[in-house]
């Protein structure tokens, strides 16, 4: 009698424990539903033009649908979005074809023609259906005479990021992943608009993503405020647009430093095209001279990507390998050089603990560590957005 009662008690405990674990699994699953974002408390009346998404994923993607969903999230934040018809008119009138950045002429066109305060540039880094995966980078660029980056962030999620117990956390629906990614980007933008000090907290730096080699050949200047132009990295990887992706990841990290002004990549592209700059195996001293002069920047950041390898179909290990070189305008020499390489399974010994399946997440952490080693001061806690 006693034994049967204790057995049923034990059974009950086991069931309760299993239920709790199940609930926990659901809580951490990427598909967990969250409440829709409320409008920003003090609504910032920013009129924003949302550019068509720049597809850097190397595969065909439903960019129009993604953009529509993204606009819905932006409107929820209380932003005034320029209509598609108005934007199309500006594109046609000024013959704008490039949507991966904002140059001087484009910024002026949007300011004068549709009175836009800022342009939201979004790049698609990776996308897949099986398992569902989405990685996006977005930035808010001003339409001032010299466009500057107000806000930038990236969000990445895959359906198999947190499989949980017995695979209960696996997400197979792409829409769920898409919703989560857009919500993350919207939350970050919201923090910026609200001037929240957490707007640039990227989390802790993992030591395994630190650069493997660091050199500081010449001492860097001690300017109060530094301007850095990041040029597209020289791409030796098999990934199409690998150099541009590394450029964007570095811009994303640098944009979060209080004493750093990052030159908008669209502006960098404009100037490189205007002087017909061709970089052979990376940047030369002459390129540094010209770029820093025409972009009025103190430093030029460049480098080479050797590997930018993502997983495909849920298999394989992501791999990233690059170097970063920071050249000084004044003495025309490198002030910082680093070499980084990591694989998704670095430091993984038991049951895939610490395994990374997403190349975008790894790159974000690696570039974060490199920028941290550049000793550029503190991260931003307040936005530098002018009041409109």
């Amino acid at each position, binding site marked *: 009698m006693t034994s049967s009662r204790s057995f049923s008690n034990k059974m009950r405990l086991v069931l309760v424990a299993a239920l709790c674990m199940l609930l926990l699994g659901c809580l951490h699953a990427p598909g967990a539903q969250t409440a829709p974002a409320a409008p920003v408390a003090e609504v910032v009346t920013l009129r924003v033009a949302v550019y068509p998404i720049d597809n850097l994923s190397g595969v065909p993607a439903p960019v129009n649908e993604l953009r529509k969903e993204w606009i819905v999230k932006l409107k929820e934040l209380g932003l005034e979005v320029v209509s598609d018809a108005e934007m199309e008119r500006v594109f046609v009138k000024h013959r704008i074809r490039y949507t991966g950045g904002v140059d001087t002429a484009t910024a002026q066109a949007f300011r004068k023609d549709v009175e836009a305060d800022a342009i939201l540039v979004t790049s698609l880094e990776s996308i897949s259906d099986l398992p569902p995966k989405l990685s996006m980078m977005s930035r808010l660029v001003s339409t001032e005479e010299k466009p500057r980056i107000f806000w930038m962030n990236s969000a990445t999620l895959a359906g198999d990021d947190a499989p949980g117990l017995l695979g209960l956390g696996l997400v197979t629906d792409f829409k769920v992943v898409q919703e989560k990614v857009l919500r993350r980007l919207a939350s970050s933008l919201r923090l910026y608009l609200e001037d929240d000090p957490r707007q640039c907290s990227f989390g802790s730096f993992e030591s395994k993503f630190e650069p*493997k*080699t*660091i*050199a*500081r*050949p*010449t001492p860097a200047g001690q300017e109060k405020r530094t301007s850095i132009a990041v040029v597209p990295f*020289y791409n*030796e990887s098999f990934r199409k647009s690998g150099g541009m992706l590394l450029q964007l990841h570095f811009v994303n990290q640098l944009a979060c430093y209080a004493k750093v002004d990052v030159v908008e990549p669209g502006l960098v592209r404009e100037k490189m095209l205007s002087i017909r700059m061709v*970089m*052979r*195996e*990376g*940047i*030369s*001293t*002459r*390129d540094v001279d010209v770029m820093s002069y025409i972009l009025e920047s103190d430093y030029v950041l*460049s480098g*080479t990507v*050797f590997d930018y390898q993502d997983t495909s179909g849920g298999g394989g290990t992501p791999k990233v*390998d690059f*170097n970063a*070189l920071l*050249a000084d305008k004044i003495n025309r*020499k*490198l002030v910082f*050089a*680093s*070499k980084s*390489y990591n*694989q998704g399974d670095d430091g993984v010994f038991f049951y895939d603990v610490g395994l990374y399946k997403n190349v975008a997440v790894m790159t974000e952490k690696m570039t974060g560590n490199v920028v941290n080693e550049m000793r550029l001061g503190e991260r931003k806690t307040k936005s530098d957005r002018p009041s409109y």
Partner: protein
Amino acid sequence: MTSLTRRTGTSRLKHVLLAAALLSLSACAVLGKTDVYRDSNMDFGSLRTVAVLPFTNLTKEQQANDRVRDVFTSELMATGGIYVVPAGEVARGIVAAGAGSPSTPTSEEAMKICKNVKADALFTGTLREYGEIRSGTASANAIVLSVQLMEGQTGRVVWSADTTQGGIGLKDRLLGGGGQPLNIVTQKAVNDLIKKLFE
């Protein structure tokens, strides 16, 4: 008399053994130095800026030479003793010098390149092995690299060394596992060369 002969025989044997031991030791000493050439007249302390030319790739791995060159450049710069001209600047210098074969320049071309990129000397290299090697069921990553240093003023080779790192060891044969990752093996090889340069 017999004991005297025996004693002489023992001492002879001792002499022979001693001579053999000395010979083997000296052989070892010579073997340890053959992979490094150093010009005794060269003042290596005067080198402040160097350029690293693209390495010759004798392996079947595409871009292996560029990967190894990049690690070599980074590690060399990380020593803090030498400034290494960025690869883009070196490429510009090579084009300006009109070098036919950028990885194996002639003395004249080496001098021109050094002048163009304002370097005191330049490194050239040959990558002979890079990647996974197999022996039976065992496999491991290995790298074989040789590097030369050419002086900018005269175009002479003043230093040369090679290194072999990785490969299948006893542990790999017994336990498997595929050896160390290629990046680690490359870094070890490059550090070995740099150690030979500075010693």
